[in-house]
């Protein structure tokens, strides 16, 4: 049922394509002050990808319904597939660099969630994390490139950037942006040295592999570079970089294919190789490259997705994907075998298939220019191994005799798993029979990449002759696959050459560093935390003081004692009492005396309140001190009973320095605060004037507490009662334990 949504979109996109005349746009502001808007620009290239996303999407949804059956987690898979499809549509339709980036990352996120679908498996979790690290890491570099590009062009609209490209062509910043975009595209499209995540992502369920990791998401990097090719086409590094990276990836992936036994991983490496070819096609000069690219993207989606479906069917029906254990499945699974055969025809580029048409276009594109002839010859082995892989997937496991180790319990896949691969693969063959059906579409899409793209005349005989060595070599590779596999599997590369090792090592280092940092900052020693806290306070106070005490005279002017009268003497006496008791507290041994002195200190504070015009405060302080004595006495009695010693800790120089420094800083800060500027009396005047008329109270402090700040006081009462209840509970528990001894 869920397949209706993508199918409807597919129908809509097809209709839009048939009536296509000019790109249509949709824009609304997003971050106006940065000039970023949610802009969509749907032209032929975007429509082409939309067709791909929705078309393959329809098949994937149908297939997934059969593949998952009654899996309890299937809702999760479908939700993320829908999210992914929406993100993909957004990414190819976006016209704003930052909108594109957002959708780009959303596809990575969906990929992470889908690869980790079997989250109970350690391998799946690790593969998902690895894929996420690589693609998100590349995404950040991509964002950097987008920022530079938007800064250069003065707009973040892709069409705007393309239009502004001649203005900044050749600037070093433009080249920097280009390489940032390369990194982003290479990580997404699994190019060397970021290629390793894609085969590992095969831990995902098969519909996911078919959809994300072969037909659509991994082509996003290709799409991006094709989209902005125009901006960098004049840079002499653009083409060669893509050709070298794409060519190397394409060749290396084929070597890796030979090392695999798992059908899905074999197909994954073939996908990496195909992506490399696509990168190469973008880098090739001339108008034929664009045509070949678009045709190849379509052909690849039409054969690789069904082959993944076939692999899924085989896995589903036999319980294994090891090509060594699979043989002669055609009898049991005739439908799947037919789909595999059709898809493999296209993959191998055999005549009468759409893959053949694409391959011819690729050959023509590569022939353009003498320098690139060598690429044409170099790609013969790559194509040959592709042929062999196609034969493995279609011929070997279905028609080859095999030995006795073939699983005996086999059955054909259910209906919903047979239709999607058959539909896609037969479409690949049908389009191969009459490529002129899609020619206008390809041409329109290619024109968005290179404006002078045009239909290419194909000289059938010449192309077929050129492909003969490929087929011949392919058959040889297929025949000697097992022997080649043994040879290649023995080769071990030094691990420092493998990007995967470095990624894993850096992950370990990150955890290690984090633990060191955590251990240093969060060491678990209470006194250390306190010391850190006070040091920070001291530093902050010292900095503030240094900034405000430039004029030392201000301080001196406010340091006068003034006239001597009774109240002044009383306050001075209270302060002397405070200082003396403070010093005494640092040296006292006995805790009881210590607590008494702390009570004395409260008394001193209360006295200074009393003589500074604050009798309410003094009264409160007295009451609190009395209450505190009761609590302290009861606590101390019990402490005594526990018989625990409370020796004072010997003074260390740093402890003395810190406490003395902070004390001095606080004293200075108080003086400095009262010495700078004039006191604001606005609040005092306001409350003084409104207390009686508004709140009918003469005691302004009381009115403030219970009227103007009543909510504050309510909070205070709440805290007080909470503390009371907590204290009572802890105390009660203490007494129970004591009684139990």
């Amino acid at each position: 049922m869920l397949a209706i949504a993508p199918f409807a979109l597919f129908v809509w996109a097809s209709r839009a394509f048939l009536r296509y005349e000019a790109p249509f746009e949709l824009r609304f502001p997003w971050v106006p002050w940065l000039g970023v808007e949610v802009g969509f620009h749907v032209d032929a290239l975007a429509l082409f990808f939309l067709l791909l996303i929705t078309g393959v999407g329809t098949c994937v949804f149908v297939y997934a319904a059969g593949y998952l059956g009654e899996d309890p987690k299937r809702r999760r898979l479908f939700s993320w597939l829908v999210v992914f499809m929406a993100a993909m549509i957004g990414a190819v339709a976006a016209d704003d660099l930052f909108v594109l980036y957002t959708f780009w990352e959303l596809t990575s996120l969906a990929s992470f969630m889908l690869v980790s679908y079997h989250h109970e498996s350690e391998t799946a979790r690790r593969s998902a994390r690895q894929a996420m690290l690589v693609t998100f890491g590349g995404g950040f570099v991509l964002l950097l490139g987008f920022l530079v590009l938007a800064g250069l062009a003065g707009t973040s609209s892709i069409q705007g950037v393309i239009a502004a490209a001649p203005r900044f062509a050749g600037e070093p910043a433009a080249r920097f942006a280009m390489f940032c975009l390369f990194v982003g595209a290479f990580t997404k499209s699994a190019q060397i040295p970021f290629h390793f995540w894609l085969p590992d992502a095969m831990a995902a369920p098969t519909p996911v592999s078919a959809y994300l990791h072969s037909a659509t998401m991994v082509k996003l990097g290709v799409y991006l570079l094709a989209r902005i090719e125009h901006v960098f086409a004049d840079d002499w590094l653009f083409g060669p970089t893509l050709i070298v990276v794409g060519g190397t990836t394409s060749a290396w992936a084929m070597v890796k294919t030979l090392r695999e036994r798992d059908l899905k991983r074999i197909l994954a490496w073939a996908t990496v190789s195909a992506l490399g070819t696509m990168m190469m096609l973008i880098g090739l000069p001339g108008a034929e490259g664009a045509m070949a690219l678009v045709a190849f993207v379509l052909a690849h989606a039409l054969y690789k997705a069904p082959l993944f479906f076939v692999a899924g069917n085989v896995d589903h029906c036999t319980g294994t994907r090891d090509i060594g254990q699979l043989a002669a499945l055609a009898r049991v699974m005739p439908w799947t075998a037919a789909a595999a055969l059709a898809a493999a025809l296209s993959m191998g580029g055999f005549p009468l298939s759409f893959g053949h048409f694409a391959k011819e276009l690729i050959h023509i594109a590569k022939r353009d220019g003498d320098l690139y002839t060598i690429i044409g010859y170099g790609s013969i082995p790559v194509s040959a191994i592709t042929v062999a892989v196609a034969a493995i997937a279609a011929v070997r496991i279905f028609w080859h005799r095999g030995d006795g180790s073939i699983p005996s319990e086999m059955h054909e896949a259910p209906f919903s798993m047979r239709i999607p691969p058959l539909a896609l693969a037969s479409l690949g063959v049908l389009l191969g029979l009459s490529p002129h059906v899609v020619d206008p579409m390809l041409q329109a899409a290619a024109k968005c990449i290179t404006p002078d793209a045009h239909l290419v005349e194909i000289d059938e005989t010449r192309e077929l002759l050129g492909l003969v060595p490929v087929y011949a070599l392919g058959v040889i590779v297929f025949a000697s696959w097992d022997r080649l596999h043994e040879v290649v599997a023995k080769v071990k590369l030094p691990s420092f050459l493998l990007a995967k090792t470095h990624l894993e090592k850096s992950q370990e280092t990150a955890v290690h560093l984090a633990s060191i940092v955590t251990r240093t900052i969060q060491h678990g020693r209470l006194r250390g935390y306190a010391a850190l806290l006070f040091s920070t306070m001291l530093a902050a106070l010292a900095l503030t003081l240094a900034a405000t005490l430039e004029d030392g005279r201000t301080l001196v002017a406010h340091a006068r004692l003034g006239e001597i009268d009774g109240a002044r003497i009383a306050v001075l006496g209270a302060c002397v009492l405070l200082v003396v008791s403070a010093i005494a507290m640092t040296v006292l041994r006995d805790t009881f005396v210590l607590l008494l002195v702390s009570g004395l200190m409260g008394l001193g504070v209360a006295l200074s309140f009393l003589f500074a015009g604050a009798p309410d405060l003094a009264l409160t302080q007295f009451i609190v001190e009395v209450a505190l004595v009761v609590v302290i006495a009861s606590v101390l009695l019990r402490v005594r009973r526990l018989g625990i010693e409370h020796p004072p800790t010997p003074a260390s120089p740093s402890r003395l320095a810190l406490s003395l420094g902070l004390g001095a800083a606080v004293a200075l800060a108080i003086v400095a605060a009262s010495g700078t500027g004039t006191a604001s009396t606005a609040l005092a005047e306001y409350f003084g004037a409104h207390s009686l008329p508004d709140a009918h109270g003469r005691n302004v402090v009381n009115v403030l507490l219970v009227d103007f700040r009543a909510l504050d006081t309510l909070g205070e009462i709440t805290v007080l009662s909470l503390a009371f209840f907590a204290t009572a509970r802890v105390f009660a528990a203490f007494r129970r334990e004591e009684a139990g001894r």
Partner: protein
Amino acid sequence: MILALAVAAGAIVFAGVYLILSRDLLRMVVGVSILGYAANLALLASGRPEPGMKPAIVPEGLEALSSAAADPVPQALVLTSIVIGFALTCFSLVLVLAIQQRTGGADADALREVEPPPTHDHQPALVEEEP
């Protein structure tokens, strides 16, 4: 007046910080509690009090506070602070008591149950692994 209050507050801060930095839990609590006194004095000082100032009470027959009266705003803040400080001190004292009963000591450095000391290989020491 300000100077006297400042010196007193400075002395209290000195004693409070000194006590908090000791190993004895009880002293730590006392230190926190007297830091509150210093804060109250500093708050009071922000109202620029003068000795013998009249309390912030509107006299009979007048509608508004006279300018010679003390600033009521810091006083209201201090009043809240005293009460909250009292609640805090009581609760911490009882907590210290409970800790002493559980661990049989009052050494702050020995309280490592939640954040155990690091192992030698700098691996994070997991609490779950502790016996």
